[in-house]
């Protein structure tokens, strides 16, 4: 039995930090260009991150063996998702835009996990370099941190496959190319193209350079940091519509977007998940519009808000815009359900993922039929492929765990003084990496996370992390069963 491969984990994390340090160049340059006085903070944190990265990669990592077991890939996932936001909080601390260490960490985690909850009350007062940095963290986190390194670590062989799986854990994401590195490269290309397109479109529509950049990054990664406190509508009417369209597409599997870009549209509609996603979108919009209209809002207002709101919720992007005068509580429940369901599997969005929900619902329908006809044999099919019963069991376990996390998180939040509906909604919005949703407002809460006590912020941070690494990885690392299983072997070495 081989020793636990700490070195490789350190090395990969170190490489990620080096990327982060390189990424800091962008806000640094912007800061020097705009003369907003933040250049030193960025330079210092950049140096620190660079040093930490080099230390981890060369000193701790050293000559690591390029093999990765399943349990090690869990560690790597969690390590990457903890270390990156941890160091990513440095710029917030040094520039002093946040009040405390907790706040900085909260903001950083919210960025990397593409949640978009913010402790910053008036983002428009921030220097542009900070805004760009915030958006950048989301963009990096959007497709998954580990996908950065997969292409790099070709030598990993089979191990890289498990990393890829860990990043899309349990959703059976299809590869775009027989070779892993190739398909990851393609994913990044699509992702980059999408961002660039949106950036360009927004610029054409008259949005400023920095604003357009930030919005593009936050939209495509389904992050949801805004550059204005009143939400995305501050950019204007046309940019809002553009962003809505892109939000919708960011909730779609990247593999499908690839087909869209390579003009293979014939295959597009065959995907069951995309069809369900679209259908769910249309139905939700219809329901939402009707509900608002019946409450006494104008039809066109209701329709506009509904399309924006549903796109933002389903993709777990979490942009907000001023809500209609009369809020409907039916929309609250609908929003909550959509938040928990989340985006398509293999997209940048969070939540339980539509694919799992489809499997679950189909299975339950089958089960009911089987109660009547006990001898009938059924299969759950997604895209004409039979889903194995093992996988279905995993899906159920995941959903159960998800609900437990929401309930548990809500419990801690009620202890911090939130009302029950507010606590549950906040927990759900953060574990699904949605962030700010008008739902929280209407439940008597506040989108301004700065007012929460520290314990609540830590809880939400944990929930964001749990949601991003899809629970199991986090649970595996902390579960006693895991340690019991692992330690004796490590000792044998």
């Amino acid at each position, binding site marked *: 039995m081989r020793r636990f491969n700490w070195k490789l984990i350190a090395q990969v994390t170190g490489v990620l930090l080096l990327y982060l340090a390189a990424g800091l160049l962008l806000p640094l340059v912007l800061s020097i260009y705009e003369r907003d006085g933040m250049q030193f903070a960025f330079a210092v944190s950049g140096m620190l991150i660079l040093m930490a990265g080099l230390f981890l990669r060369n000193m701790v990592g050293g000559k690591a063996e390029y093999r990765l077991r*399943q*349990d090690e890939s*869990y560690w790597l996932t969690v390590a990457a998702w903890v270390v990156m936001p941890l160091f990513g909080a440095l710029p917030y601390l040094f520039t002093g835009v946040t009040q405390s260490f907790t706040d900085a960490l909260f903001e950083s985690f919210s960025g990397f996990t593409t949640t978009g909850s913010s402790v910053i009350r008036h983002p428009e007062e921030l220097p542009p370099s900070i805004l760009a940095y915030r958006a950048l963290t989301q963009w990096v986190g959007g497709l998954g941190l580990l996908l950065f390194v997969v292409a790099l670590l070709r030598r990993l062989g089979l191990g890289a496959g498990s990393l890829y799986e860990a990043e899309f854990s349990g959703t059976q994401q299809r590869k775009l190319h027989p070779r892993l590195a190739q398909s990851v490269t393609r994913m990044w290309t699509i992702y980059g193209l999408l961002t660039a397109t949106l950036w360009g479109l927004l610029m054409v529509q008259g949005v400023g350079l920095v604003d357009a950049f930030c919005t593009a990054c936050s939209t495509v990664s389904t992050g949801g940091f805004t550059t204005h406190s009143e939400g995305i509508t501050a950019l204007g009417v046309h940019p809002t519509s553009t962003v809505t369209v892109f939000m919708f597409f960011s909730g779609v599997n990247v593999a499908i977007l690839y087909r869209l870009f390579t003009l293979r549209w014939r295959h597009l509609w065959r995907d069951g998940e995309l069809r369900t996603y679209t259908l769910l979108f249309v139905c939700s919009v219809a329901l939402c519009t009707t509900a608002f209209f019946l409450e006494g809002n104008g039809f066109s207002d209701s329709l506009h808000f509904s399309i924006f709101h549903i796109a933002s919720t389903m993709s777990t992007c979490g942009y907000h815009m001023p809500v209609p005068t009369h809020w409907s*509580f*039916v929309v*609250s*429940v*609908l929003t*909550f*359900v959509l938040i928990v369901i989340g985006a398509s599997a293999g997209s940048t969005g969070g939540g339980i993922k539509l694919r799992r929900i489809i499997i*679950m619902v189909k*299975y*339950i*329908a089958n*089960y*009911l*039929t*089987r*109660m*009547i*006809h*006990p001898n009938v044999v059924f299969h759950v099919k997604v895209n004409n492929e039979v889903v194995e*019963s093992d996988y279905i*069991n*995993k899906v*159920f*376990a*995941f*959903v*159960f*765990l998800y*609900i437990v996390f929401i*309930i548990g998180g*809500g*419990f801690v939040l*009620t*202890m911090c*003084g*939130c*009302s*029950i*509906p507010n*606590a*549950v909604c906040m927990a759900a919005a953060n574990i699904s990496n949605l962030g700010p949703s008008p739902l929280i407002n209407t*439940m008597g809460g506040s989108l301004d996370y700065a007012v929460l006590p520290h314990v609540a912020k830590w809880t939400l941070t944990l929930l964001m992390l749990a949601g991003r690494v899809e629970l*199991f990885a986090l*649970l*595996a690392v902390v*579960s006693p*069963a*895991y340690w019991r*299983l*692992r330690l004796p072997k490590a000792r044998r070495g």
Partner: protein
Amino acid sequence: MLMVEGLMILSCLIPAFHFGDGTWRGITLSGLFTLNVGLLMLVRYHSARTMHDRRLAYLLVVLMWIVLALFGAIPFMATGVLTSFTDALFESMSGITSTGATVFASVEWLPSSILLWRSMTQWFGGFGIVLLVLALVPSMGINKYSLYTAEASGADNTGKQTTSTASTVRQTLGVYILLTLLFVFLLCKSGMQLWDAVNITFTNISSGGFSIYNDSLSHLTHLQQYIVALAMLLSGVNFAMLYNLLTFHWDRLRHKLEQFRFYIGLYLVATVFVAIALSTHMGYSAADAARLSIVQTASVLTTTGSLVADTSYWWVPVTYLFVILSLCGGMAGSTTGGLKAMRVLILIRHVRKILRDRLHPHAVNPVRLNRTPVSSHLLTNVMVIFMVYVMVIFAGVMMLMLCGINATESIGAAIACITGYGPGLGISGGFGCYAHFTTAAKLICSLIMLLGRLECLTLLILFIPSFWRR
């Protein structure tokens, strides 16, 4: 079934005459009516018995509960204490499903016959659920006794448990009646009037929660409160386990031991938390906090819904914890509602199994309960019921909100109704009542109660198209 109910209504005549409150005419009428219909149904049923199949069983069970609730509503209407049919149905459904949600803002002015009727519906409903499990579980493809009697894999492995349904029913009924008598006796001993003792025992041993006092259990002395807490806790224990305990078959107890341990463990942990929370955040003295916590947590975990204080003013996390606990519920095969300790335990074990599977893909890690692997049938059953439960709660909250009820109360009411706890959150929680709900909301709540009691699937299956196909 209906005949039994008719007899029960007639038995309510006793207090009606005894206290001379002038409701006897209404009670007699409804009793006789129910009895007649019951006889008719029996004749019909006998002729239909030959075509008895799986689908009919489901239909019959659902119809049975609906009809029972409908007829149970008659006394409320006939005596004129409730003028609206919806209210009467709500109250009756709440009784028969042993939920304990009430539309009466004050119960103390009600005629005693009605009070006894409310208690009796709960007592009857509490036992009905055990029968229901026996009647339905076999047709779910799970071993007949697996949910009820013993360990998850089915009792036939051990070969010791009794094998006929009739004798199991007899056992259960025996234990149930014995427990009832015991607690009536205990409460009388502690200085309570026989009338009070009977009513309180009826509603608490069935984990129902109707009360004959506006201030529920806080009307009682401390000793009596502890006795009631014990009654509630016992009502959350599997009946076969109690039977084995009483007949000294202690070797059979181990079949349910893990589930029992989970149930009691959950109770203890929650009690300690609630006690600490009450003394630190609510300003109760340590002794008071301990008492309130012991009694109220028992009431919540067994989804009884008797209140030892007005819980709607308690610290929010405590009320939230109560909602979670009521979702868990007592042991399978008891009178309690909720998901049942066994299901929760299996779900937790299943998650652990998945974790292990991922770390050791080639190891064989079955989900075990009491050291026996859980059959895949039971596992899927548990998972499906859990998911459907969650979906029904979502749908319920949405519909209640559509009726114009605010978020907190909708969540509270939906969960309180599906688990059979009774008091919700907000105005409908604590010593409050559901009187302010609109007609539609009351009907929805009644439906959710029924869904909860029939464990969702039985009722939902009627809406599957292939159910009605030839």
